[in-house]
């Protein structure tokens, strides 16, 4: 892999992030409503002097460009400001929550790719078979179900009918003193429903995509070559075909990451998952602008990182792209 490519890619990612910072700032400052009023409201009411001192304190009375400069400068130093609501650094609020979100998103991503691709490959073997039909129907269904509704239905189901999975939270508070193994299992147990809920949409899409991609690849000449060599069907399918069919899947996986984060926002809200999505939602309701901006920043950063990783792994997976820019 050539490192100058990675550097360039990372550099471009940083430029995108700078764009996100500027956009965030402008959006929120240009929006109607006086942030000082909001801060004061959270503190329990305000007089005009209080508003003035808040403006002073938060730099709200400076010209917009100056405010932007200050904000960008602060972000560059890793300072995302203080939450209006919690009076705590936004960075530390997010630090507490980014882990659960990544855990949820990555788990859902892996689940959906593994199961989806497996179903898709099976379906591609017999393009007109029962499995193929099932994958098509299932993909359309999975795509059409609102993710929050799936979550609610699962809660109804597992809260009262089959109470075998926890339906809210990430860990059981009772296990605070437990050993790492028990805690890990506990988190995994809590993770099942949210991760599955989130995975289901993408799972269906991956199944459909990998079916199409496999069909395309299976019709190609090199698959015929592999068969002509006398390779077994399993080898043909999982070695020769899947390696090639995986390329578009990888691309989509990278593109889906942003959507996955959006979905995580709903899923976290439904399952009371202590992640960034819920922080975003709560902060929007509280008009806690610094926190909203911080979450948008980090969520975008996650997408940028995911995109860079996708690009790099795509180059790794497709030798034709190695060494090109």
């Amino acid at each position, binding site marked *: 892999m050539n490192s100058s490519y990675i550097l360039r890619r990372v550099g471009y990612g940083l430029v995108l992030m700078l764009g996100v910072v500027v956009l965030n700032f402008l959006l929120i400052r240009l929006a109607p409503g006086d942030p000082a009023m909001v801060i004061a409201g*959270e503190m329990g009411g305000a007089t005009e002097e209080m508003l003035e001192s808040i403006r002073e*304190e938060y730099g709200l009375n400076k010209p917009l460009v100056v405010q932007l400069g200050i904000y960008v400068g602060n972000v560059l130093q890793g300072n995302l400001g203080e939450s209006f609501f919690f009076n705590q650094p936004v960075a530390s609020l997010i630090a507490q929550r980014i882990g659960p979100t990544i855990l949820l998103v990555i788990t859902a991503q892996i689940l959906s790719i593994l199961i989806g691709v497996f179903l898709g490959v099976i379906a591609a073997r017999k393009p007109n078979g029962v499995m193929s039909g099932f994958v098509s129907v299932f993909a359309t269904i999975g795509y059409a179900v609102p993710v929050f509704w799936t979550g609610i239905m699962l809660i109804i189901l597992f809260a009262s009918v089959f109470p075998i999975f926890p339906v809210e*939270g990430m860990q059981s*508070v009772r296990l605070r003193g437990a050993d790492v193994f028990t805690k890990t299992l506990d988190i995994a147990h809590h993770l099942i429903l949210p991760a599955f809920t989130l995975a289901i949409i993408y799972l269906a899409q991956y199944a459909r995509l990998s079916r199409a991609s496999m069909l395309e690849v299976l019709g190609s000449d090199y698959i015929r070559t592999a068969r002509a060599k006398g390779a077994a069907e399993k080898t043909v399918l999982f070695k020769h075909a899947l390696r090639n069919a995986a390329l578009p899947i990888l691309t989509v996986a990278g593109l889906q990451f942003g959507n996955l984060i959006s979905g995580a926002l709903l899923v976290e809200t439904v399952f009371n998952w202590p992640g960034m999505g819920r922080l975003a939602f709560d902060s929007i309701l509280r008009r806690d602008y610094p926190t909203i901006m911080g979450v948008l920043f980090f969520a975008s950063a996650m997408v940028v990182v995911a995109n860079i990783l996708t690009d790099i792994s795509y180059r790794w997976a497709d030798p034709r792209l190695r060494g090109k820019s």
Partner: protein
Amino acid sequence: MKHLTRLLGAAAIAAGSLGSVPAFAEGGTLVIGSTQVPRHLNGAVQSGIATAVPSTQIFASPLRYDENWEPQPYLAESWEVSDDGLSVTLNLVQNATFHDGEPVTSEDVAFSIMTTKENHPFQSMFAPVETIETPDAHTAVIKLSQPHPALLLALSPALAPVIPKHIFGDGQDVKSHPANAAPVGSGPFMLDEFTAGEAIILKKNPNFFIDGRPKLDEIIIRIVQDPSALLIAMENGEADIYPFMAGSQEIKRLEKSDHLTITDEGYAAVGPINWLAFNTKSEKLSDVRVRQAIAYATDRDFITNALHRGVSTQQRGPIIESSPFFDDTIEAYDVDLDKANALMAEAGFADGMELTIDFIPGPREQQQSVAEYLKSQLKKIGIDLTVRAAPDFPTWAGRVGGHDFELTMDVVFNWGDPVIGVHRTYLCSNIRQGVIWSNTQSYCNEEVDEILNAAAIEQDADKRKELYSRFQQIIAQDVPIYFVNATPYHTAYDNRLMNPPKGIWGTMHPMDRLEWSE
């Protein structure tokens, strides 16, 4: 996949069995479920139940109250009110220390009360306090500009936490002080971990100044904003106590749980009143007959019995009905559509009118549902009501605080003494633009001001009661507010909990006596 399921299934059983073990023979953990998110943990500068519950565990205060509204010693082992009512002497315990080992002195008490006076939204609590003298390390003398009978109640844990001067007195603004999220107090529990918006973990203060307390080892306040999720947690034993539960579905559902007890005790001092407020300065509502018509058109019975499914109780006046000051002879405005229509016609609105109603975002059943009910009910007297939903609290507070509303549903607490929680709503002097829960109705009646100011300094309980009676009669006539119901706060707790928080302050009170029966 199969293996994984089995493994997790096993873990589920393991976790489940661990989860059902409530506590150990001694000490143990109490998990409090809360739907409210505290901004921070310092009750000296932040009102509201979300902050008060943890704050009262972390910070001790001069006095505490028993179930009968009787003050009890706490940081002050004794106290004395001068005959003229202008000074209150607190004699502090000798052995109290903050969690960092520093002793609690009269300096800290003086600093705390003055800080609260300056920063707490309830300005009437300590408004008459002029100075606090500290003749020695364990004596504080509060000097008042006028008699202030409400002061003793204001020295409760929920309203007057004693905060360490050596931490909060460093010159930073106490409202946004970093220590608010990592407070050091002298209460029975100390902060172990605070994950904003998620959980507050408190552990036993081993050096608590009351011997043998607290009984519990640990209190975990879990914030679960979705009430359904909290219900499930209560049913599964993932949480032990759920205070400030107001939804009929929650109450009715948890009543069915064998391992839980449901009570509506523990909210006497809170005095939460759910009401319909009128902007008396708005064009159409400045006519008292319109306000009366709306009052007569509203069916309080329907709201409490059908809408709230019988869990809430009626509230007819500005002082909570459970308070000794409540006067039950006032006009209650029981539903009477004929009278309502007649009043509308008299006011010149026989052809009806258009109005808007806001509601405070909160428990849906108490606020939004009532607003939506009014939309369909007021149609009967020709009022076309538009519900103006606010997506969030700041939006609503902006409208109502900015007097940009006609009707709004709101919930306001009495906070024990009328001086603290009632006066603020009716005094002409408290019509303050931009301040929520001030006199946002812009109601001004000089006679009411006179009565309230007299009641604030009246030290004779009977005379004070009489003054409040007159106040309630006038309010009933002027209808700046139509009182709907007492918010039906209930607490659900595990049956095995001993000494559950049923005092006048409920869970906004140190839980040092709580213990598990096993």
